[in-house]
């Protein structure tokens, strides 16, 4: 019976071959990520332009806590490792390993988001609101968009864990893990850029 189940999982695209030999879903995900470069590029550029425009309230140097953000950046970076281990487990058809690593990835991601929430709260208490200055507006918009992307990623990871446990996923299981992994790594990669440009390089 598991023979049949596994065999059907291999024909996720109904056994059709595609012209390029590549999976439709995977091409779609890479196209989406390509478009996201334009989205985050716009938000990052807006921030870079406006970071020094502080009509009121604190300046970047006053509110950034580099040690704290370094730790949360490291956590997000390591979540990319655990994600890759989850994909590896999925390709070895190891359900338990997959769900374990997916859960750890989600937890690391949630820790990152928790760190962001804490950080934003601290900044707000130091006088940097969303509408305080252009620095505030553009900072919260950029990091907020990123945080929302991470949160969506966490929801996808946990949903995937739930679905794998119920074995009801339509389509190729390993591929879904791989594609969510691509999304997750991309979100991490955007943070690599944000961490350097926003935090480490002062205005």
């Amino acid at each position, binding site marked *: 019976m*598991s*023979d049949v189940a*596994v065999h059907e999982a*291999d024909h996720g695209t109904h056994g059709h071959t595609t012209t*390029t*030999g*590549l999976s439709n879903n*995977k*091409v779609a995900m*890479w*196209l989406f*990520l*390509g*478009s*996201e*470069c*334009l989205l*985050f*590029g*716009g938000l*990052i*550029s807006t921030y*870079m*332009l406006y970071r020094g425009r502080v009509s009121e309230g604190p300046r970047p140097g006053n509110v950034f806590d*580099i*040690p704290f953000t*370094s730790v949360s*950046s*490291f956590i997000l*970076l*390591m979540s*990319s*490792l655990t*994600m*890759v*281990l989850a994909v*590896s487990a999925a*390709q*070895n*058809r*190891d*359900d338990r390993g997959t769900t374990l690593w997916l859960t750890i990835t989600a937890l690391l991601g949630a820790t990152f988001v928790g760190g962001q929430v804490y950080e934003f709260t601290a900044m707000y208490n130091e006088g940097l609101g969303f509408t305080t200055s252009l620095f505030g507006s553009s900072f919260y918009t950029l990091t907020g968009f990123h945080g929302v992307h991470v949160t969506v990623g966490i929801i996808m990871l946990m949903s995937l864990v739930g679905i794998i446990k119920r074995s009801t996923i339509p389509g190729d299981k*390993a*591929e879904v893990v*791989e594609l969510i*992994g*691509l999304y997750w*790594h*991309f979100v*991490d*990669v955007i943070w*690599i*850029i944000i*961490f*350097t*440009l926003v935090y*480490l*390089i002062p205005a």
Partner: protein
Amino acid sequence: MTAATETHSEHDHSHDDHAQHGMSNAGYIRIAIILAAMTALEVSTYYVDFGALFMPVLLVLMVVKFFIVVSYFMHLKFDNKLFSFCFYAGLFLAVMVYVIALATFKFFAA
């Protein structure tokens, strides 16, 4: 259950065209350690004065980390070139238009 899964996984590799990934888990962990080391170096710029090297080091590290995650964790280096085209086309256009736009704001002027 695990024994059955293991024999199936051998069977499946012949069907599965994305099993030919170059990296073992140990390989991924090695990459992660390299990334962590680079991050540590980046963070050290906050504590240590790099002088004129400050900006170049940070920017180079940022770019290198970006491409390492994309090429190895996202597997782009080993996959079909079409994926690279789709992603790098977007990245290239983004960098080009936003750098030009910022340049018109004299962002890069000394």
